[in-house]
């Protein structure tokens, strides 16, 4: 029997039992759709985080205390604001160095309130991180030295606190302390549910007063070009370690962050896909079960086909193709459902989704494989039927 004859037979058999075929496919459909959706969510998360990290600015070296590792609590920072000067000396430019302390605080203006990430920064923060302003001006070096109570609002903060007016020149309260708005940052957009648009920047000196600390959390240095990042990192760490004996510092680069996050999210995606894959396997067992029922039901047909000249392999091929057709059609429907659901999730929920080209292809391949895997047993049983006994069956 030619393979396409088997395909035609399979199509006829599945059409003859439309409802049963569809119900049998449901397991595969759900399994494949789940794989596609979860991989899309995992992929979306990864893409967004990478985007976010890239959005931090390229060529930036983050100096943080302790050994940089995801999952460990940040060490208490011994860094002082004066270390910015140390870093600037090594980097050869004060322009390219900044320091940050931050904390979540309530920012209010009149009746309006916004829970923002309040960042204490130096006047070069906008240059280092490339944050253009929509209006007004950024913090100045004088603001930092005098601990001026001035603030640059992120786009979301500005639109929430001052919905109908120009915020520049207005007054907001952070933690009950009044600040004058000097500028509004351009909207950066959301990344993985976190956005720079919900930040407000104040002079780092004023932030230290506000938060009651005298250290800074990290120092950021922008390298002139990517080639310098390695040397710059080493120099910065050794300079700081010689200053603070016994304290470890880490220079974290963007590629490190990307690599670590990428690894974590790939693992996460894999776990999600594997969980979804289990439901695909369960769907496969359902296919196997129904195929076995079908073989029993069609025992006489199989006997007849053998009497008419069908070889064992013709019968095996017929039932195997039927099982594979079942799972492949289920796979295609599942991919459609999965892609649609992913798009809906991306559009209507905060979860970003990103359908990698390979995930539908993989899901389809797996569903075909599941058809073969779970079709072999029923098909071989059909093929081995003794035609005499099969024809006698009622």
């Amino acid at each position, binding site marked *: 029997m030619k393979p396409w*004859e088997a395909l035609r037979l399979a199509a006829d058999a599945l059409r003859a039992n439309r409802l049963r075929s569809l119900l049998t496919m449901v397991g595969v459909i759900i399994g494949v759709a789940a794989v596609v959706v979860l991989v899309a969510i995992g992929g979306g998360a990864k893409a967004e985080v990478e985007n976010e990290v890239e959005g931090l600015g390229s060529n930036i070296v983050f100096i943080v205390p302790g050994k940089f590792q995801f999952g460990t609590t940040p060490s208490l920072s011994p860094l002082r604001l004066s270390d910015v000067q140390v870093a600037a000396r090594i980097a050869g430019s004060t322009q390219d160095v900044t320091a940050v302390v931050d904390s979540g605080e309530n920012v209010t203006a009149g009746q309006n309130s916004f829970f923002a990430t309040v960042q204490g920064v130096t006047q070069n923060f906008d240059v280092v991180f490339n944050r253009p302003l929509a209006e007004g001006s950024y913090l100045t070096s004088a603001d930092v030295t005098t601990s001026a109570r001035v603030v640059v609002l992120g786009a979301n903060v500005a639109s929430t606190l001052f919905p109908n007016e120009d915020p520049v020149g207005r007054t907001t309260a952070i933690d009950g302390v009044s600040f004058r708005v000097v500028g509004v940052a351009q909207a950066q957009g959301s990344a993985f549910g976190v956005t720079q648009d919900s930040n407000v920047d104040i002079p780092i000196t004023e932030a230290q007063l506000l938060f009651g600390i005298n250290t800074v959390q990290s120092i950021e240095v922008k390298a002139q070009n990517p080639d310098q990042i390695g040397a710059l990192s080493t120099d910065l760490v050794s300079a700081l370690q010689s200053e603070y004996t016994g304290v470890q510092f880490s220079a974290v680069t963007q590629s490190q962050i990307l690599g670590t996050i990428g690894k974590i999210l790939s693992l996460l995606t894999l776990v999600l896909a594997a969980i979804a894959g289990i439901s695909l396997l369960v769907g496969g067992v359902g296919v196997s079960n129904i195929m076995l029922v079908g073989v029993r039901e069609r025992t006489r047909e199989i006997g*007849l086909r*053998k009497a008419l*000249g*069908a070889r064992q*392999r013709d019968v095996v091929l017929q039932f195997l193709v039927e099982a594979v057709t079942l799972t492949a059609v289920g796979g295609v429907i599942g991919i459609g459902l999965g892609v649609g659901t992913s798009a809906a999730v991306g559009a209507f929920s905060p979860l970003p989704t990103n359908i990698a080209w390979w995930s539908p292809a993989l899901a389809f391949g797996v569903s075909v494989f599941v058809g073969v895997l779970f079709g072999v047993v029923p098909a071989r049983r059909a093929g081995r039927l*003794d035609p*005499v006994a099969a024809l006698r069956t009622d």
Partner: protein
Amino acid sequence: MSTDTQAPPTYAIEAVDVRRSYAMDGMQVEALRGITLGIAEGEYVAVTGPSGSGKSTLMHLLGALDRPSSGRLLIGGQDTTSLDDAGLARVRGSEIGFVFQSFQLLARTDAQDNVALPLVYRGVGRTERRQRAVAALEAVGLGHRLSHRPTQLSGGEQQRVAIARALVGEPRLVLADEPTGNLDSANGHEVLNVLEQLNRERGVAVVLVTHDADVAARANRLIRMRDGLVVADEIQRRQESRGEQEVQGRRTPQLARTPQGGRTPQGGRETDGGQEAQHGQVLAIRSPAPSPSPSPSPTPSRSPAPTPSPSSDVPDIPGQPR
């Protein structure tokens, strides 16, 4: 097909000391206990016998659906003993056509595709398959029922579809297992007429298993079985009430053959030609047990030493010591 030729007959199918036993509840049951017979090309044979006599088992063996426990089976001169399952399937598909009591048509499939089914397994393309199916259906008088499904056809029509399916592959031999068993007598007659017409016109050998004496009486040769043995193998004048049958003189040369010594063509000469027997008269009676019981109705089943007597171990060569 020319008649009265002197050439040795060619067998559509030949069984040589075929035995078949089954294990049933731990007991060996011998369904066939040594059958030797040949069915010539174009022959029309009825096999009868009580239930359990082994006629279904014999049918399955002749149709290559089953293998003998011992003995040889030659289909179209080819020994099937050494064939694997695929080889047997090929033989079934090309040499044998089956007609079953319960028709065995695919319910969801129309007449044309039901008839075309055997050709699928011979790699015939769809277009040619359907053309040949149309021709076969026309041959059984169902050219106007191509796209009817089995449920839309009468029992007689369904069986004619099955006959068309049996014939579409142009087999040497059609095996019909109680083909009229599920039909009333009018439809049964119609089906037998179609089978006989195809046997006559196409020279296809037909082996008919039946309980029905009237059906059996229509065949040219009657094989009676009991307890796994052939107890009688007779050439008979066809008991055909319809006057148009003119076949008698034509086929007897091949028919008159001993079941045991069937490979010796001269074995049946004396029954050839010229008989003007009346309806239903037995022209030749062959005992399967050559020497001990020359009577037409031997009872070999419980006889002492059953093994050698009906088998071909001892062909009836004159003078051979027993």
